[in-house]
């Protein structure tokens, strides 16, 4: 059917099925890929919001037939000839753009509001943005951006602070503009000629053995290019270190241990052909008994899933005389704490594009944390030398650890290689997950069962902690083997203990595989300890802030691990930073209120070991380009948290130049050096250190060369815009300096390394470097004692960041983590066998946003560049226990029991109010 309508002021005529979603027509037929899709055409995410005759609509639920003769506005139409729309600039300036995937929908929802309501109240802003999910920002800066834009549109002058320094102020992000205009190309937005569709056949069983697998019929279907099984994997069939006992694809006779486990791959010319092929693959399954629960998996007679008695790995730590230490305690708390599977829910689903690049390398473009690791896994799986594999990090719509799983990379590489080897004309394969698939098949956060016993003396000194942890790794490992050590380390926290007895194990079940998730293995253990500490405070009648201060680990003191923290320790400063907010919250919570409303204030703290294992030596390069600007080459994958900007800021600081003179080439294995594993909040510290070193080395080389040309002493020279200038005013263009490098045959590209190997005695780092940061959160909540419904009214978060490279981005990390903490505390839970996607996995919307106050404590670090420390994941830890402690305190006066399970759904809270078991 011919359909005419106006898009962004211009008329278009298309020939399309009028029942197709407007979203698909915009993205596919009109190549307007600024409008995003985050759910499966369900209206559950808001990323596809556009304006239809000025009204915000979900374009995924709007048939294009409705657009006939009407006016459609998308993000691409926001900017005018004079530049960005005030909403776009406000989003950039306030730091409302992180990964950028929700941004187009947010912008259009906001425009729909401001076009109708030029001076909206906060409630109207919340109403307009409600239901547009954002996983990065915590919504606070988005609401601020709308308010700022509204004021400017009304003609008010509204400026916001920026700070002048390259490092330490609130510099704007370097890559936000394409994200607010819709120009940024995420993988799903990419097209290549003759692009093929990759799809995955997944097991429908929680646990089954594959008895037969027949792909003959599927291979013969029209439009089907390839059907791949384990037999088609040329190299290693197993992941090796990433995931013990997990095949890339299962062989006949092997078990598949969760719903969604991959069985076969299909490459086809169209989506329809791919689905037909999936339907035509014949698999014989023998269903096996299954369990999702660690207690059941460990019991005698449990179904055999994997590992040794379904145990993957164990870790134990004992120090001091536990019996004596408990004997000294005046109060002891003993409890069992339980947490659920969580899904990262990055707004961009897993999407990868495979092709052969101009140099003939098998190339996979996809969001991840460590392109060089993916390159290595692919090389192993395909039996190729690493040099013949290339991994490129595109703009990525969030990860939070979820995109660390190599499987989608291996699948894409396998399909791409197979298509090329078969001589098919297709040049590229796109593997794009549905949201449902993303829920079923990607790693989740490990549920924990934590059995804790802690004691303290009457005067508030902690004496002993005994902890037993069963971490549920689900069906497969995905680095679950490292979880026990992380769990134990997080359990003790930044506190002095006389004795510790900690044991943790990872247990296989038939739940979804669990893997990296912001705060890998630590947030769950921190939750249990911090809740138990709060219970102990209640028992002793102690103030939670003073109590923690009393036992807070101080600089130079050995921790329960047996050695001191290597970095400067700002824990006491963090707690003190919260004191005024704490007192104000307590004051408010004492105010009179209706009898059915309980109010409570909760505190929780944490330490977080950043930096991870990996290499303690990482590298970055810096180059003086031919035209005189500077290029930084590094690998600090930016999935929305802002490393592209951070690296440029740090290089600018090291070179003493403006950031606009710096280009960053980041996370492309063919262009940038390997800067180590990317996780555990290590980018700013480790890669930033290498970038700083490379930039400094380049400054020395460049100024040295300029000194020869100018005949001046190098130490007197400095960079000034595009030139190098001497104190007497003599100067030379950087392009000329670059030409001189080339003339004498000297490289314009230099290396820089950040190297901590040998810094710490081996004994202080049994497995990992003793780099820790600390932080604490406060929550003020209101509970309806009759229904269990809970609102988090306010949160305050303090973190020792060493030095904030970018204040606004640091705040954004913390605010986003706070909202993730709200979700984990009150709503989010993947129930195996029930949860399918965003319709039944409840993420916080803007209506759940509390008032958030952030305190950046800057106790300069000792080893990292410019005094920085790690932050991104650390911020995830204290939010959930702070909220749960607040809820427990809110219901306590009404006779409620302590909450020991998260998420504390209204139902669980009501049971606690009534003194029933959860």
């Amino acid at each position, binding site marked *: 059917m011919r359909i005419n309508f106006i898009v962004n002021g211009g008329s278009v005529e298309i020939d399309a099925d009028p029942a197709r979603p407007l979203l698909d027509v915009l993205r596919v037929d009109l190549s307007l890929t600024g409008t995003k899709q985050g759910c499966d055409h369900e209206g559950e995410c808001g990323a596809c919001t556009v304006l239809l005759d000025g009204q*915000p*609509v979900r374009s995924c*639920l709007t048939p294009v*037939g409705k657009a006939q003769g009407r006016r459609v506005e998308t993000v691409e139409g926001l900017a005018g000839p004079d530049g960005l729309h005030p909403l776009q600039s406000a989003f950039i300036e306030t730091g409302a753009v992180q990964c950028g995937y929700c941004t187009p929908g947010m912008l259009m*929802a906001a425009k729909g509001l401001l076009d109708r309501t030029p001076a909206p109240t906060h409630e109207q802003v919340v109403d307009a943005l*409600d*239901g547009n999910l954002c996983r990065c920002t915590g919504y606070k800066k988005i609401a601020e951006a709308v308010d700022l834009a509204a004021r400017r549109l009304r003609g008010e002058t509204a400026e916001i602070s920026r700070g002048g320094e390259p490092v330490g102020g609130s510099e704007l992000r370097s890559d936000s503009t394409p994200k607010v205009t819709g120009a940024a190309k995420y993988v799903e937005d990419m097209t290549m000629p003759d692009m093929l569709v990759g799809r995955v056949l997944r097991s429908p069983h929680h646990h089954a053995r594959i008895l037969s697998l027949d792909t003959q019929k599927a291979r013969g279907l029209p439009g089907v290019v390839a059907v791949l099984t384990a037999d088609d994997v040329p190299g290693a069939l197993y992941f090796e270190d990433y995931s013990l006992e997990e095949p890339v694809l299962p062989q006949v006779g092997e078990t598949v241990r969760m719903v969604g486990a991959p069985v076969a791959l299909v490459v086809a010319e169209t989506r329809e052909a791919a689905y037909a092929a999936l339907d035509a693959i014949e698999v014989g399954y023998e269903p096996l008994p299954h369990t999702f629960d660690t207690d059941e998996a460990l019991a005698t007679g449990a179904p055999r899933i994997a590992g040794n008695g379904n145990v993957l790995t164990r870790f134990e730590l004992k120090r001091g005389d536990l019996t004596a230490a408990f004997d000294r305690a005046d109060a002891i708390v003993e409890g069992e704490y339980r947490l659920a599977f969580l899904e990262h829910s990055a707004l961009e689903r897993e999407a990868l594009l495979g092709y052969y690049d101009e140099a003939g390398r098998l190339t996979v473009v996809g969001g991840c944390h460590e392109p060089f690791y993916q390159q290595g896994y692919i090389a192993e799986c395909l039996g190729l030398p690493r040099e013949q594999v290339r991994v490129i990090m595109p703009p990525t719509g969030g990860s939070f650890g979820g995109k660390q799983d190599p499987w989608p990379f291996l699948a894409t590489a396998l399909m791409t290689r197979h298509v090329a080897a078969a001589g098919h004309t297709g040049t590229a394969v796109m593997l794009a997950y549905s949201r449902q698939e993303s829920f079923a098949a990607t790693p989740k956060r490990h549920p924990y069962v934590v059995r804790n016993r802690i004691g303290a003396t009457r005067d508030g000194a902690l004496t002993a902690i005994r902890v037993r942890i069963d971490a549920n790794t689900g069906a497969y490992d995905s680095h679950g083997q490292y979880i026990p050590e992380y769990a134990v380390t997080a359990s003790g926290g930044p506190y002095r203990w006389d004795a510790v007895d900690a044991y943790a194990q990872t247990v296989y079940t038939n739940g979804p595989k669990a893997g990296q998730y912001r705060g890998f293995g630590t947030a769950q253990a921190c939750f249990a300890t911090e809740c138990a500490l709060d219970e102990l405070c209640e028992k002793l009648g102690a103030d939670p802030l003073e109590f923690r201060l009393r036992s807070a680990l101080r600089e130079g003191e050995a921790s329960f691990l047996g050695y001191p923290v290597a970095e400067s320790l700002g824990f006491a400063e963090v707690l003190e930073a919260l004191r005024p907010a704490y007192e104000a919250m307590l004051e408010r919570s004492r105010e009179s209120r209706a009898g059915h409303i309980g109010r409570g204030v909760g505190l929780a703290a944490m330490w977080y070991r950043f930096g991870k294992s990996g290499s303690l030596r990482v590298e970055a390069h810096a180059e003086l380009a031919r035209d005189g600007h500077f290029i930084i080459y590094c690998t600090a994958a930016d999935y929305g948290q802002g490393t592209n900007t951070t690296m440029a800021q740090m290089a600018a600081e090291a070179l003493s130049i403006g950031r606009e003179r710096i280009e960053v080439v980041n996370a492309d294995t063919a262009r940038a050096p390997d800067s180590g594993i990317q996780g555990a909040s290590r980018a700013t510290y480790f890669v930033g250190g290498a970038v700083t070193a490379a930039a400094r080395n380049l400054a020395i080389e460049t100024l040295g060369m300029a000194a020869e040309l100018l005949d001046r002493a190098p130490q007197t020279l400095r960079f000034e815009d595009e030139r190098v200038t001497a104190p007497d005013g003599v100067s030379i263009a950087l392009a000329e300096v670059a030409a001189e490098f080339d003339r004498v045959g000297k490289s314009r590209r230099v290396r820089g390394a950040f190297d901590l190997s040998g810094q710490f005695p081996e004994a202080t780092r049994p497995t990992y470097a003793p780099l820790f940061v600390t932080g604490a959160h406060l929550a003020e909540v209101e509970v309806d004692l009759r229904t*269990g419904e809970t609102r988090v009214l306010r949160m305050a978060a303090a973190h020792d960041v060493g030095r904030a490279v970018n204040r606004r981005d640091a705040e954004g990390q913390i605010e986003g983590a706070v909202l993730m903490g709200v979700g984990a505390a009150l709503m989010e839970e993947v129930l195996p066998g029930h949860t399918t996607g965003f319709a039944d996995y409840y*993420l916080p919307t803007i*209506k759940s946003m509390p008032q958030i106050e952030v305190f950046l404590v800057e106790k300069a670090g000792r080893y990292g560049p410019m005094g920085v420390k790690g932050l991104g994941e650390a911020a995830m830890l204290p939010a959930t226990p702070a909220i749960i402690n607040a809820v427990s305190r809110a219901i306590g006066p009404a006779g409620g029991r302590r909450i020991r399970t998260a998420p504390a759904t209204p139902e669980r809270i009501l049971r606690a109010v009534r003194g029933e078991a959860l």
Partner: protein
Amino acid sequence: MTQYLYPRTPEEAVAALVEAQGRAIIIAGGTDVLPDMEKGKWRPDRLVDITRIPELGQVEAGGGWVTVGAAVPFAALREHPLIAERVHALADAAASVGARAIQTGATWAGNLVQAMPAADGAVIAVALDAEARILDASGAAWQRVADLYLGPGRSKIDPTGQLLTHIRFPLPSEAWGTAWRRAGRRPSLILPTLNCAATVALREDRIAAATIAMGPVGPCPVRAGDAELFLRGQLPSPEVMAEAAQLALCQAQPRSSALRASREYRMAVLPVLVREALTEAAQRAGCPPQS
């Protein structure tokens, strides 16, 4: 390829359905039709879009009735001055559906045809004693909304042959108030764990009539008839409202859902919502607040 029609009158719409002999369905906002087509519930050859029929886009009051056209989206409904000022429960129920960018498309009529037991639009319609005007080849007739349900997700209205053109409900002239309550695992963008609507009409400080509708506590929206009967002639005291809430509970048969809430939780919370809704409705009807 699907045919997409914009009839100019309700009669034209019905004719377009009849002509297609079961292969056409009505579409208003499309927010349910599109996902249902994706799931395969409907596989129409023809979509008959009613949103450009002028007479279906109006909210009108007259003769003691409020009449809402089938093409009025929830966003317009909640913002209509008459609804926002006089029928609070309807405005709040409309605001409970999905999110703003869904309310701009989704309609009250569509919500009723969809026939889900917890649909916010259905529960408020049943509380308001709403009627639906059903037009088909044989003519038009008003039917009580409460009578349109065959079971969960099953309506008597056949969108391949019938058009719900209007919804109407009586608007008492004075001393009348309505209220809406909802519980869920998050504040919005979620199907309700429970919802309920109450209306109260007062005469000389006593309750002349009250209605209570609840969901999902049965296969379709449930009226708390015993409680309504009990309330008639009572003074709207807290004790009376609490008693009525307990009576309402006796008529509720909620189910357990792993993803939302157990039956026990729903039973515990329902009386709270009913009592609050009744109390607020009474206040809006002119009863002074009591504690």
